[in-house]
Protein backbone atom coordinates (compact mmCIF):
# COMPACT_ATOMS: atom_id res chain seq x y z
CA UNK A 1 0.00 0.00 0.00
CA UNK A 2 2.60 2.51 1.17
CA UNK A 3 4.92 1.19 -1.50
CA UNK A 4 2.45 1.75 -4.32
CA UNK A 5 1.68 5.23 -3.00
CA UNK A 6 5.35 6.00 -3.17
CA UNK A 7 5.58 4.58 -6.66
CA UNK A 8 2.62 6.59 -7.88
CA UNK A 9 4.01 9.80 -6.45
CA UNK A 10 7.25 9.15 -8.33
CA UNK A 11 5.29 8.44 -11.49
CA UNK A 12 3.42 11.69 -11.01
CA UNK A 13 6.59 13.69 -10.57
CA UNK A 14 8.15 12.05 -13.63
CA UNK A 15 5.04 12.87 -15.61
CA UNK A 16 5.21 16.46 -14.38
CA UNK A 17 8.82 16.84 -15.37
CA UNK A 18 8.59 15.08 -18.68
CA UNK A 19 9.67 17.37 -21.47
CA UNK A 20 10.94 19.93 -18.97
CA UNK A 21 14.64 20.49 -19.25
CA UNK A 22 16.48 22.43 -16.56
CA UNK A 23 15.67 26.14 -16.96
CA UNK A 24 19.20 26.95 -18.03
CA UNK A 25 18.77 24.83 -21.14
CA UNK A 26 15.43 26.36 -21.96
CA UNK A 27 16.79 29.90 -22.36
CA UNK A 28 16.93 30.66 -26.10
CA UNK A 29 20.45 31.26 -27.52
CA UNK A 30 19.57 34.81 -28.55
CA UNK A 31 19.12 35.66 -24.86
CA UNK A 32 22.58 34.36 -24.05
CA UNK A 33 24.18 36.38 -26.82
CA UNK A 34 22.38 39.55 -25.75
CA UNK A 35 23.14 39.00 -22.05
CA UNK A 36 26.85 38.45 -22.67
CA UNK A 37 27.03 41.38 -25.06
CA UNK A 38 25.41 43.70 -22.51
CA UNK A 39 27.66 42.44 -19.71
CA UNK A 40 30.94 42.90 -21.58
CA UNK A 41 29.90 46.16 -23.25
CA UNK A 42 31.98 48.37 -20.91
CA UNK A 43 35.05 46.48 -22.20
CA UNK A 44 34.91 48.17 -25.57
CA UNK A 45 32.25 50.91 -25.57
CA UNK A 46 33.11 54.53 -24.83
CA UNK A 47 31.83 56.30 -21.74
CA UNK A 48 29.54 58.36 -23.93
CA UNK A 49 27.93 55.25 -25.38
CA UNK A 50 27.59 53.62 -21.96
CA UNK A 51 26.19 56.64 -20.15
CA UNK A 52 24.34 58.64 -22.78
CA UNK A 53 23.15 55.91 -25.13
CA UNK A 54 22.66 52.80 -23.02
CA UNK A 55 22.10 54.44 -19.63
CA UNK A 56 19.40 56.62 -21.12
CA UNK A 57 17.92 53.77 -23.16
CA UNK A 58 17.55 51.61 -20.06
CA UNK A 59 15.96 54.43 -18.07
CA UNK A 60 13.45 55.38 -20.76
CA UNK A 61 12.84 51.66 -21.32
CA UNK A 62 11.98 51.22 -17.63
CA UNK A 63 9.53 54.14 -17.71
CA UNK A 64 8.05 52.94 -21.01
CA UNK A 65 7.71 49.41 -19.61
CA UNK A 66 5.50 50.86 -16.86
CA UNK A 67 3.24 52.09 -19.66
CA UNK A 68 3.57 48.78 -21.48
CA UNK A 69 2.32 47.10 -18.31
CA UNK A 70 -0.66 49.43 -17.98
CA UNK A 71 -1.59 49.51 -21.65
CA UNK A 72 -0.54 46.03 -22.75
CA UNK A 73 -1.93 44.08 -19.80
CA UNK A 74 -4.54 46.50 -18.52
CA UNK A 75 -5.68 48.22 -21.72
CA UNK A 76 -5.23 51.64 -20.09
CA UNK A 77 -3.24 54.20 -22.06
CA UNK A 78 -1.80 56.67 -19.61
CA UNK A 79 0.14 59.83 -20.46
CA UNK A 80 1.09 60.32 -16.82
CA UNK A 81 3.91 57.78 -16.60
CA UNK A 82 6.61 60.41 -17.02
CA UNK A 83 4.84 62.41 -14.31
CA UNK A 84 5.00 59.44 -11.91
CA UNK A 85 8.69 59.14 -12.76
CA UNK A 86 9.13 62.86 -12.23
CA UNK A 87 7.41 62.78 -8.84
CA UNK A 88 9.90 60.14 -7.65
CA UNK A 89 12.78 62.13 -9.17
CA UNK A 90 11.64 65.29 -7.42
CA UNK A 91 11.25 63.47 -4.11
CA UNK A 92 14.85 62.19 -4.06
CA UNK A 93 15.97 65.74 -4.76
CA UNK A 94 13.71 67.22 -2.10
CA UNK A 95 14.35 64.67 0.66
CA UNK A 96 17.94 63.85 -0.33
CA UNK A 97 20.80 66.03 -1.56
CA UNK A 98 20.97 68.65 -4.27
CA UNK A 99 22.55 72.03 -4.94
CA UNK A 100 19.43 73.69 -3.53
CA UNK A 101 20.26 73.04 0.12
CA UNK A 102 17.59 75.44 1.34
CA UNK A 103 14.99 72.92 0.23
CA UNK A 104 16.77 69.57 0.08
CA UNK A 105 16.62 67.78 3.40
CA UNK A 106 19.78 65.70 2.99
CA UNK A 107 18.24 62.53 4.39
CA UNK A 108 20.10 59.25 3.76
CA UNK A 109 19.36 57.23 0.61
CA UNK A 110 17.74 54.32 2.47
CA UNK A 111 15.01 56.70 3.55
CA UNK A 112 14.72 58.96 0.51
CA UNK A 113 14.53 56.25 -2.15
CA UNK A 114 11.73 54.18 -0.55
CA UNK A 115 9.97 57.41 0.39
CA UNK A 116 10.24 58.73 -3.17
CA UNK A 117 8.78 55.50 -4.54
CA UNK A 118 6.04 55.55 -1.92
CA UNK A 119 5.01 59.11 -2.83
CA UNK A 120 5.01 58.20 -6.53
CA UNK A 121 2.83 55.15 -5.82
CA UNK A 122 0.38 57.17 -3.72
CA UNK A 123 0.21 59.85 -6.40
CA UNK A 124 -0.38 57.23 -9.11
CA UNK A 125 -3.04 55.53 -7.02
CA UNK A 126 -5.00 58.77 -6.80
CA UNK A 127 -4.54 59.46 -10.51
CA UNK A 128 -5.54 55.87 -11.28
CA UNK A 129 -8.58 56.14 -9.08
CA UNK A 130 -9.70 59.15 -11.15
CA UNK A 131 -8.70 57.74 -14.51
CA UNK A 132 -10.21 54.24 -14.32
CA UNK A 133 -13.69 55.69 -14.31
CA UNK A 134 -13.09 56.52 -17.95
CA UNK A 135 -12.00 54.54 -20.99
CA UNK A 136 -10.06 55.03 -24.21
CA UNK A 137 -9.63 58.63 -25.31
CA UNK A 138 -10.94 59.97 -21.98
CA UNK A 139 -8.26 58.12 -20.03
CA UNK A 140 -5.67 59.72 -22.28
CA UNK A 141 -7.23 63.14 -21.71
CA UNK A 142 -7.37 62.80 -17.92
CA UNK A 143 -3.79 61.57 -17.63
CA UNK A 144 -2.64 64.28 -20.02
CA UNK A 145 -4.39 66.83 -17.81
CA UNK A 146 -2.59 65.38 -14.78
CA UNK A 147 0.75 65.62 -16.58
CA UNK A 148 0.09 69.22 -17.59
CA UNK A 149 -1.12 70.17 -14.13
CA UNK A 150 1.93 68.69 -12.44
CA UNK A 151 4.24 70.45 -14.91
CA UNK A 152 2.70 73.87 -14.24
CA UNK A 153 2.49 73.23 -10.52
CA UNK A 154 6.18 72.29 -10.30
CA UNK A 155 7.12 75.30 -12.40
CA UNK A 156 5.17 77.76 -10.30
CA UNK A 157 5.86 76.34 -6.86
CA UNK A 158 9.12 77.70 -5.42
CA UNK A 159 8.77 76.59 -1.80
CA UNK A 160 9.00 72.86 -2.48
CA UNK A 161 9.71 72.31 -6.19
CA UNK A 162 12.01 75.33 -6.66
CA UNK A 163 10.02 76.51 -9.64
CA UNK A 164 11.45 76.94 -13.09
CA UNK A 165 15.03 75.93 -12.26
CA UNK A 166 14.28 72.79 -10.28
CA UNK A 167 17.13 70.95 -8.60
CA UNK A 168 20.72 70.57 -9.79
CA UNK A 169 23.49 68.26 -8.57
CA UNK A 170 21.17 65.39 -7.84
CA UNK A 171 23.42 62.36 -7.52
CA UNK A 172 23.28 58.73 -6.41
CA UNK A 173 24.70 57.74 -3.01
CA UNK A 174 28.36 56.68 -2.80
CA UNK A 175 27.46 53.11 -1.92
CA UNK A 176 30.20 50.45 -1.50
CA UNK A 177 32.77 53.16 -2.22
CA UNK A 178 31.64 53.34 -5.83
CA UNK A 179 30.76 56.59 -7.58
CA UNK A 180 27.58 55.43 -9.25
CA UNK A 181 27.51 58.45 -11.50
CA UNK A 182 30.66 57.25 -13.29
CA UNK A 183 29.92 55.81 -16.70
CA UNK A 184 30.65 52.13 -16.04
CA UNK A 185 28.96 51.79 -12.62
CA UNK A 186 25.99 53.80 -13.87
CA UNK A 187 25.73 51.54 -16.92
CA UNK A 188 25.54 48.46 -14.71
CA UNK A 189 23.15 50.17 -12.30
CA UNK A 190 20.68 51.03 -15.05
CA UNK A 191 21.20 47.65 -16.75
CA UNK A 192 20.34 45.92 -13.49
CA UNK A 193 17.09 47.86 -13.01
CA UNK A 194 16.16 47.50 -16.68
CA UNK A 195 16.54 43.73 -16.43
CA UNK A 196 14.60 43.73 -13.15
CA UNK A 197 11.77 45.78 -14.69
CA UNK A 198 11.72 43.61 -17.80
CA UNK A 199 11.53 40.32 -15.92
CA UNK A 200 9.06 41.52 -13.31
CA UNK A 201 6.63 42.64 -16.03
CA UNK A 202 7.17 39.39 -17.88
CA UNK A 203 6.75 37.33 -14.73
CA UNK A 204 3.57 39.14 -13.74
CA UNK A 205 1.90 38.21 -17.02
CA UNK A 206 1.22 34.75 -15.60
CA UNK A 207 0.79 35.65 -11.92
CA UNK A 208 -2.78 36.10 -10.61
CA UNK A 209 -2.44 39.90 -10.59
CA UNK A 210 -1.31 40.05 -14.22
CA UNK A 211 -3.77 37.42 -15.40
CA UNK A 212 -6.65 39.23 -13.73
CA UNK A 213 -5.54 42.48 -15.32
CA UNK A 214 -5.53 40.93 -18.77
CA UNK A 215 -8.97 39.53 -18.01
CA UNK A 216 -10.15 43.01 -17.03
CA UNK A 217 -8.71 44.36 -20.27
CA UNK A 218 -10.48 41.79 -22.45
CA UNK A 219 -13.73 41.48 -20.62
CA UNK A 220 -14.42 43.62 -17.56
CA UNK A 221 -18.03 42.49 -17.23
CA UNK A 222 -17.04 38.85 -17.20
CA UNK A 223 -14.39 39.53 -14.57
CA UNK A 224 -17.02 41.12 -12.33
CA UNK A 225 -19.15 38.01 -12.77
CA UNK A 226 -16.17 35.90 -11.68
CA UNK A 227 -15.78 37.76 -8.40
CA UNK A 228 -13.12 40.32 -9.37
CA UNK A 229 -13.41 43.94 -8.33
CA UNK A 230 -12.61 45.44 -11.71
CA UNK A 231 -12.02 48.99 -10.43
CA UNK A 232 -9.65 47.84 -7.70
CA UNK A 233 -7.58 45.86 -10.20
CA UNK A 234 -7.29 48.82 -12.52
CA UNK A 235 -6.25 51.17 -9.71
CA UNK A 236 -3.72 48.62 -8.44
CA UNK A 237 -2.25 48.48 -11.93
CA UNK A 238 -1.60 52.22 -11.77
CA UNK A 239 0.02 51.82 -8.36
CA UNK A 240 2.33 49.07 -9.58
CA UNK A 241 3.21 50.96 -12.74
CA UNK A 242 4.38 53.85 -10.55
CA UNK A 243 6.99 51.61 -8.88
CA UNK A 244 8.56 50.97 -12.28
CA UNK A 245 8.15 54.56 -13.43
CA UNK A 246 9.49 55.80 -10.09
CA UNK A 247 12.65 53.69 -10.37
CA UNK A 248 13.12 55.07 -13.86
CA UNK A 249 12.52 58.61 -12.62
CA UNK A 250 15.10 58.37 -9.85
CA UNK A 251 17.68 56.99 -12.28
CA UNK A 252 16.80 59.73 -14.76
CA UNK A 253 17.41 62.43 -12.14
CA UNK A 254 20.80 60.86 -11.40
CA UNK A 255 21.67 60.46 -15.06
CA UNK A 256 21.02 64.09 -15.96
CA UNK A 257 22.14 65.22 -12.50
CA UNK A 258 19.04 67.38 -12.20
CA UNK A 259 15.28 67.42 -12.12
CA UNK A 260 13.22 70.35 -13.33
CA UNK A 261 9.81 71.07 -14.87
CA UNK A 262 11.33 70.30 -18.28
CA UNK A 263 11.70 66.66 -17.21
CA UNK A 264 7.95 66.33 -16.69
CA UNK A 265 6.60 68.61 -19.41
CA UNK A 266 4.08 67.43 -22.00
CA UNK A 267 6.70 66.58 -24.63
CA UNK A 268 8.56 63.89 -22.64
CA UNK A 269 5.21 62.52 -21.42
CA UNK A 270 4.14 61.98 -25.01
CA UNK A 271 7.59 60.65 -25.91
CA UNK A 272 7.06 57.79 -23.45
CA UNK A 273 3.85 56.87 -25.25
CA UNK A 274 5.64 57.06 -28.60
CA UNK A 275 8.45 54.84 -27.30
CA UNK A 276 6.06 52.23 -25.96
CA UNK A 277 3.85 52.18 -29.05
CA UNK A 278 6.70 52.19 -31.56
CA UNK A 279 8.45 49.40 -29.68
CA UNK A 280 5.24 47.42 -29.25
CA UNK A 281 3.07 47.06 -26.17
CA UNK A 282 2.45 43.32 -26.43
CA UNK A 283 5.73 42.40 -24.77
CA UNK A 284 8.02 44.23 -22.33
CA UNK A 285 10.98 44.01 -24.72
CA UNK A 286 9.12 46.47 -26.96
CA UNK A 287 9.63 49.26 -24.41
CA UNK A 288 13.40 48.84 -24.62
CA UNK A 289 13.50 48.51 -28.40
CA UNK A 290 11.47 51.71 -28.67
CA UNK A 291 13.69 53.47 -26.12
CA UNK A 292 16.87 52.45 -27.95
CA UNK A 293 15.55 53.76 -31.25
CA UNK A 294 14.37 56.99 -29.62
CA UNK A 295 17.72 57.62 -27.94
CA UNK A 296 19.61 56.93 -31.19
CA UNK A 297 17.36 59.32 -33.09
CA UNK A 298 17.47 61.98 -30.40
CA UNK A 299 21.25 61.75 -30.16
CA UNK A 300 22.23 61.51 -33.82
CA UNK A 301 19.30 62.62 -35.97
CA UNK A 302 20.05 66.32 -35.56
CA UNK A 303 23.61 65.83 -36.86
CA UNK A 304 22.37 63.72 -39.73
CA UNK A 305 19.72 66.29 -40.63
CA UNK A 306 22.24 69.13 -40.56
CA UNK A 307 24.79 67.19 -42.60
CA UNK A 308 22.04 66.65 -45.17
CA UNK A 309 21.60 70.41 -45.27
CA UNK A 310 18.28 70.31 -43.41
CA UNK A 311 17.15 72.18 -40.36
CA UNK A 312 18.03 70.36 -37.13
CA UNK A 313 14.70 71.44 -35.69
CA UNK A 314 13.03 68.97 -38.00
CA UNK A 315 13.96 66.28 -35.52
CA UNK A 316 10.48 66.05 -34.05
CA UNK A 317 9.01 65.84 -37.51
CA UNK A 318 11.25 62.84 -38.16
CA UNK A 319 10.08 61.13 -34.96
CA UNK A 320 6.47 61.92 -35.79
CA UNK A 321 6.80 60.47 -39.29
CA UNK A 322 8.51 57.36 -37.95
CA UNK A 323 5.70 56.96 -35.44
CA UNK A 324 3.07 57.25 -38.16
CA UNK A 325 4.87 54.76 -40.39
CA UNK A 326 5.27 52.13 -37.68
CA UNK A 327 1.72 52.48 -36.40
CA UNK A 328 0.40 52.41 -39.96
CA UNK A 329 2.20 49.23 -40.93
CA UNK A 330 2.00 47.45 -37.61
CA UNK A 331 -0.33 48.29 -34.75
CA UNK A 332 1.89 46.09 -32.58
CA UNK A 333 4.92 48.29 -33.18
CA UNK A 334 8.35 47.14 -34.27
CA UNK A 335 7.76 43.95 -32.33
CA UNK A 336 4.77 43.24 -34.54
CA UNK A 337 6.81 43.88 -37.69
CA UNK A 338 9.47 41.50 -36.45
CA UNK A 339 6.89 38.82 -35.72
CA UNK A 340 5.30 39.27 -39.14
CA UNK A 341 8.69 38.91 -40.83
CA UNK A 342 9.45 35.78 -38.80
CA UNK A 343 6.07 34.36 -39.69
CA UNK A 344 6.62 35.08 -43.38
CA UNK A 345 10.03 33.42 -43.41
CA UNK A 346 8.42 30.33 -41.96
CA UNK A 347 5.88 30.16 -44.77
CA UNK A 348 6.36 28.74 -48.19
CA UNK A 349 6.54 31.72 -50.57
CA UNK A 350 4.46 29.91 -53.21
CA UNK A 351 1.59 28.44 -51.25
CA UNK A 352 1.62 30.74 -48.21
CA UNK A 353 1.31 27.69 -45.97
CA UNK A 354 3.60 27.17 -43.01
CA UNK A 355 6.70 25.17 -43.84
CA UNK A 356 7.22 22.30 -41.50
Amino acid at each position, binding site marked *: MAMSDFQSSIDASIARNRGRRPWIERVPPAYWVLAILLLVMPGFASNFVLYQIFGWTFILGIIASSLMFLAGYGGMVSLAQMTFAGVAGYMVAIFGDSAIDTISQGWPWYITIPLALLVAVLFATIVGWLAVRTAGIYTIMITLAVAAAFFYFARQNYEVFNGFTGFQSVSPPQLFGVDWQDAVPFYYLTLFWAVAAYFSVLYLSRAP*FGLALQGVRDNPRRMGALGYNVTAHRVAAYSFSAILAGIGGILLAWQSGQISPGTVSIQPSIDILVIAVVGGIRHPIGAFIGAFLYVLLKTFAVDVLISLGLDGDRFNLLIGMGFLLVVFFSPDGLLGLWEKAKDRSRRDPLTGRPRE
Partner: protein
Amino acid sequence: MTMTEDRSARRLQATGTENALELRGISKLFGALRALEGIDLTVRPGERRAVLGSNGAGKTTLFNCITGDFLPTTGTIRFFGEDVTAFPAHERIRRGLRRTYQISLLFTGLSVIDNIYIACRGVSRGRFSFIRPRRDDALMASAETLVRVVHLEDLKDTLVSSLSYGQQRQLEIAMALAGAPRFILFDEPAAGLSPTERSELVEILLGLPSHMGYIIIEHDMDVALRVADFVTMMHNGRIFKEGKPAEIEEDPEVQTLYLGGGDDA
Protein backbone atom coordinates in the same frame (compact mmCIF):
# COMPACT_ATOMS: atom_id res chain seq x y z
CA MET B 1 -16.29 25.79 21.92
CA THR B 2 -19.88 24.74 22.44
CA MET B 3 -20.87 28.36 22.03
CA THR B 4 -19.42 28.54 18.53
CA GLU B 5 -20.81 25.15 17.60
CA ASP B 6 -24.16 26.34 18.81
CA ARG B 7 -23.92 29.49 16.77
CA SER B 8 -22.86 27.75 13.59
CA ALA B 9 -25.66 25.24 14.03
CA ARG B 10 -28.11 28.09 14.38
CA ARG B 11 -26.68 29.76 11.30
CA LEU B 12 -27.05 26.55 9.35
CA GLN B 13 -30.62 26.38 10.42
CA ALA B 14 -31.13 29.98 9.47
CA THR B 15 -29.76 29.47 5.98
CA GLY B 16 -31.84 26.34 5.76
CA THR B 17 -35.01 28.33 6.12
CA GLU B 18 -33.96 31.27 3.96
CA ASN B 19 -34.83 31.21 0.31
CA ALA B 20 -31.91 30.97 -2.06
CA LEU B 21 -33.33 33.74 -4.14
CA GLU B 22 -36.17 36.11 -3.50
CA LEU B 23 -37.14 38.76 -6.05
CA ARG B 24 -39.81 41.31 -5.20
CA GLY B 25 -41.29 43.70 -7.76
CA ILE B 26 -38.32 43.66 -10.11
CA SER B 27 -38.69 45.77 -13.21
CA LYS B 28 -36.15 46.93 -15.72
CA LEU B 29 -36.59 49.70 -18.25
CA PHE B 30 -34.38 50.21 -21.27
CA GLY B 31 -35.52 53.69 -22.25
CA ALA B 32 -39.19 53.22 -22.96
CA LEU B 33 -38.88 49.44 -23.31
CA ARG B 34 -40.15 47.47 -20.33
CA ALA B 35 -37.87 44.45 -20.42
CA LEU B 36 -39.08 43.27 -16.99
CA GLU B 37 -42.22 44.26 -15.13
CA GLY B 38 -43.16 43.39 -11.55
CA ILE B 39 -41.26 40.13 -11.32
CA ASP B 40 -41.79 38.19 -8.07
CA LEU B 41 -39.76 35.03 -7.89
CA THR B 42 -38.87 32.76 -5.01
CA VAL B 43 -36.43 29.87 -5.30
CA ARG B 44 -35.65 27.57 -2.37
CA PRO B 45 -32.07 26.37 -1.67
CA GLY B 46 -31.20 23.37 -3.78
CA GLU B 47 -34.18 23.91 -6.04
CA ARG B 48 -33.75 23.44 -9.79
CA ARG B 49 -35.84 25.86 -11.76
CA ALA B 50 -36.35 26.23 -15.49
CA VAL B 51 -37.30 29.58 -17.00
CA LEU B 52 -39.03 29.32 -20.34
CA GLY B 53 -40.21 32.04 -22.65
CA SER B 54 -40.05 33.23 -26.21
CA ASN B 55 -37.26 35.40 -27.60
CA GLY B 56 -37.16 38.81 -25.96
CA ALA B 57 -39.30 37.68 -23.01
CA GLY B 58 -36.72 39.18 -20.64
CA LYS B 59 -35.05 36.01 -19.38
CA THR B 60 -31.46 37.18 -19.88
CA THR B 61 -32.34 40.59 -18.47
CA LEU B 62 -33.67 38.85 -15.38
CA PHE B 63 -30.31 37.08 -14.98
CA ASN B 64 -28.44 40.34 -15.48
CA CYS B 65 -30.45 41.93 -12.68
CA ILE B 66 -29.87 38.99 -10.34
CA THR B 67 -26.10 38.93 -10.86
CA GLY B 68 -25.68 42.70 -10.82
CA ASP B 69 -24.59 43.07 -14.43
CA PHE B 70 -27.41 45.65 -14.56
CA LEU B 71 -29.21 47.29 -11.68
CA PRO B 72 -32.98 46.78 -11.78
CA THR B 73 -35.08 49.93 -12.17
CA THR B 74 -37.24 48.95 -9.19
CA GLY B 75 -37.54 46.04 -6.79
CA THR B 76 -35.39 44.14 -4.32
CA ILE B 77 -33.25 41.02 -4.61
CA ARG B 78 -32.42 38.81 -1.65
CA PHE B 79 -29.78 36.11 -1.91
CA PHE B 80 -29.93 33.61 0.97
CA GLY B 81 -31.73 36.19 3.05
CA GLU B 82 -29.30 39.03 2.37
CA ASP B 83 -30.47 42.11 0.47
CA VAL B 84 -28.02 42.31 -2.44
CA THR B 85 -30.00 44.74 -4.60
CA ALA B 86 -27.32 47.44 -4.49
CA PHE B 87 -24.29 45.12 -4.45
CA PRO B 88 -21.85 45.20 -7.37
CA ALA B 89 -21.55 41.96 -9.33
CA HIS B 90 -18.33 40.75 -7.70
CA GLU B 91 -19.82 41.02 -4.21
CA ARG B 92 -22.72 38.77 -5.22
CA ILE B 93 -20.38 36.27 -6.85
CA ARG B 94 -18.27 36.09 -3.69
CA ARG B 95 -21.43 35.14 -1.78
CA GLY B 96 -21.84 32.02 -3.89
CA LEU B 97 -23.85 33.17 -6.90
CA ARG B 98 -22.61 32.09 -10.36
CA ARG B 99 -23.75 32.45 -13.93
CA THR B 100 -23.03 31.43 -17.48
CA TYR B 101 -23.61 33.68 -20.45
CA GLN B 102 -25.90 33.02 -23.39
CA ILE B 103 -23.16 34.19 -25.74
CA SER B 104 -19.92 32.79 -24.37
CA LEU B 105 -17.85 35.45 -22.63
CA LEU B 106 -14.48 33.75 -22.41
CA PHE B 107 -10.87 34.85 -22.50
CA THR B 108 -10.11 33.70 -26.01
CA GLY B 109 -6.42 34.57 -25.83
CA LEU B 110 -5.87 32.26 -22.87
CA SER B 111 -5.86 28.49 -22.56
CA VAL B 112 -8.76 26.43 -21.23
CA ILE B 113 -7.06 25.76 -17.91
CA ASP B 114 -6.13 29.44 -17.48
CA ASN B 115 -9.75 30.45 -18.00
CA ILE B 116 -10.86 28.06 -15.29
CA TYR B 117 -7.97 29.11 -13.07
CA ILE B 118 -9.05 32.76 -13.35
CA ALA B 119 -12.56 31.71 -12.36
CA CYS B 120 -11.26 29.77 -9.33
CA ARG B 121 -9.01 32.65 -8.30
CA GLY B 122 -11.86 35.16 -8.57
CA VAL B 123 -13.71 33.60 -5.67
CA SER B 124 -10.73 32.94 -3.45
CA ARG B 125 -8.00 34.94 -1.77
CA GLY B 126 -4.91 36.20 -3.54
CA ARG B 127 -6.55 37.87 -6.50
CA PHE B 128 -3.78 40.46 -6.34
CA SER B 129 -0.97 37.98 -5.82
CA PHE B 130 2.30 38.74 -7.59
CA ILE B 131 3.45 35.14 -7.30
CA ARG B 132 2.82 32.72 -10.13
CA PRO B 133 0.86 29.62 -9.13
CA ARG B 134 2.98 26.52 -8.68
CA ARG B 135 2.00 23.32 -10.40
CA ASP B 136 0.72 21.91 -7.11
CA ASP B 137 -1.20 25.07 -6.17
CA ALA B 138 -4.55 24.17 -4.56
CA LEU B 139 -6.50 26.34 -6.97
CA MET B 140 -4.66 24.78 -9.91
CA ALA B 141 -5.78 21.42 -8.57
CA SER B 142 -9.40 22.52 -8.40
CA ALA B 143 -9.11 23.93 -11.92
CA GLU B 144 -7.81 20.53 -13.03
CA THR B 145 -10.79 18.87 -11.38
CA LEU B 146 -13.26 21.18 -13.10
CA VAL B 147 -11.66 20.64 -16.50
CA ARG B 148 -12.41 16.94 -16.05
CA VAL B 149 -16.00 17.57 -14.92
CA VAL B 150 -16.77 19.13 -18.29
CA HIS B 151 -14.68 16.59 -20.23
CA LEU B 152 -12.15 19.07 -21.58
CA GLU B 153 -9.05 17.54 -19.98
CA ASP B 154 -7.49 16.66 -23.33
CA LEU B 155 -7.81 20.28 -24.45
CA LYS B 156 -6.77 22.02 -21.27
CA ASP B 157 -3.71 23.73 -22.79
CA THR B 158 -5.53 24.71 -25.98
CA LEU B 159 -6.30 28.35 -26.64
CA VAL B 160 -10.00 29.02 -26.15
CA SER B 161 -10.19 30.72 -29.56
CA SER B 162 -9.53 27.36 -31.22
CA LEU B 163 -12.23 25.46 -29.30
CA SER B 164 -15.42 24.42 -31.04
CA TYR B 165 -18.64 26.19 -30.11
CA GLY B 166 -19.86 23.27 -28.03
CA GLN B 167 -16.55 23.07 -26.16
CA GLN B 168 -16.75 26.77 -25.36
CA ARG B 169 -20.19 26.19 -23.88
CA GLN B 170 -18.76 23.40 -21.72
CA LEU B 171 -16.02 25.74 -20.56
CA GLU B 172 -18.63 28.35 -19.60
CA ILE B 173 -20.15 25.77 -17.29
CA ALA B 174 -16.82 24.80 -15.75
CA MET B 175 -16.18 28.46 -14.93
CA ALA B 176 -19.57 28.78 -13.27
CA LEU B 177 -18.75 25.79 -11.06
CA ALA B 178 -15.53 27.34 -9.73
CA GLY B 179 -15.21 27.90 -6.00
CA ALA B 180 -18.14 26.76 -3.90
CA PRO B 181 -21.25 27.96 -5.71
CA ARG B 182 -24.50 27.97 -3.77
CA PHE B 183 -26.65 28.94 -6.69
CA ILE B 184 -26.04 29.03 -10.44
CA LEU B 185 -27.80 30.77 -13.32
CA PHE B 186 -27.44 28.93 -16.64
CA ASP B 187 -28.38 31.01 -19.68
CA GLU B 188 -29.33 28.64 -22.50
CA PRO B 189 -26.41 26.27 -21.97
CA ALA B 190 -27.78 23.80 -24.50
CA ALA B 191 -28.33 26.24 -27.37
CA GLY B 192 -26.44 25.16 -30.45
CA LEU B 193 -25.19 21.90 -28.99
CA SER B 194 -25.32 18.57 -30.84
CA PRO B 195 -27.58 15.84 -29.42
CA THR B 196 -24.59 14.06 -27.84
CA GLU B 197 -23.32 17.28 -26.28
CA ARG B 198 -26.84 17.94 -25.03
CA SER B 199 -27.08 14.65 -23.20
CA GLU B 200 -23.60 15.24 -21.76
CA LEU B 201 -24.84 18.58 -20.49
CA VAL B 202 -27.92 17.02 -18.91
CA GLU B 203 -25.61 14.51 -17.22
CA ILE B 204 -23.42 17.27 -15.82
CA LEU B 205 -26.44 19.17 -14.50
CA LEU B 206 -27.99 16.09 -12.92
CA GLY B 207 -24.61 15.23 -11.40
CA LEU B 208 -24.33 18.49 -9.45
CA PRO B 209 -24.45 18.09 -5.66
CA SER B 210 -28.02 18.30 -4.43
CA HIS B 211 -27.53 21.45 -2.31
CA MET B 212 -26.52 23.39 -5.44
CA GLY B 213 -29.65 25.01 -6.80
CA TYR B 214 -29.91 26.61 -10.18
CA ILE B 215 -32.09 28.41 -12.67
CA ILE B 216 -31.75 27.29 -16.24
CA ILE B 217 -33.05 29.21 -19.23
CA GLU B 218 -33.81 26.72 -21.92
CA HIS B 219 -35.74 26.82 -25.18
CA ASP B 220 -35.65 23.06 -25.56
CA MET B 221 -38.61 21.74 -23.52
CA ASP B 222 -37.15 18.23 -23.38
CA VAL B 223 -33.92 19.38 -21.78
CA ALA B 224 -35.66 21.82 -19.46
CA LEU B 225 -38.15 19.29 -18.19
CA ARG B 226 -35.48 16.70 -17.51
CA VAL B 227 -33.24 18.94 -15.41
CA ALA B 228 -35.79 21.07 -13.56
CA ASP B 229 -38.28 20.29 -10.82
CA PHE B 230 -40.20 23.54 -11.22
CA VAL B 231 -40.93 25.71 -14.24
CA THR B 232 -41.50 29.45 -14.60
CA MET B 233 -42.99 30.76 -17.83
CA MET B 234 -42.18 34.32 -18.94
CA HIS B 235 -43.75 36.45 -21.61
CA ASN B 236 -43.17 40.13 -22.44
CA GLY B 237 -41.26 40.80 -19.24
CA ARG B 238 -43.80 39.16 -16.95
CA ILE B 239 -44.18 35.81 -15.28
CA PHE B 240 -47.47 34.31 -16.37
CA LYS B 241 -47.33 30.75 -15.12
CA GLU B 242 -45.41 28.65 -12.61
CA GLY B 243 -45.74 24.96 -11.86
CA LYS B 244 -44.45 21.43 -11.97
CA PRO B 245 -43.06 20.35 -15.36
CA ALA B 246 -46.00 18.04 -16.00
CA GLU B 247 -48.58 20.76 -15.29
CA ILE B 248 -46.79 23.23 -17.52
CA GLU B 249 -46.49 20.76 -20.35
CA GLU B 250 -50.21 20.11 -20.32
CA ASP B 251 -51.35 23.68 -19.84
CA PRO B 252 -53.30 24.73 -22.94
CA GLU B 253 -52.39 28.40 -22.56
CA VAL B 254 -48.69 27.54 -22.45
CA GLN B 255 -49.05 25.31 -25.45
CA THR B 256 -50.55 27.99 -27.64
CA LEU B 257 -48.28 30.78 -26.43
CA TYR B 258 -45.02 28.99 -26.05
CA LEU B 259 -45.18 26.58 -28.92
CA GLY B 260 -46.57 29.33 -31.07
CA GLY B 261 -43.89 31.90 -30.17
CA GLY B 262 -40.99 29.54 -29.59
CA ASP B 263 -40.67 27.82 -32.95
CA ASP B 264 -37.75 30.13 -33.80
CA ALA B 265 -35.63 28.44 -31.13
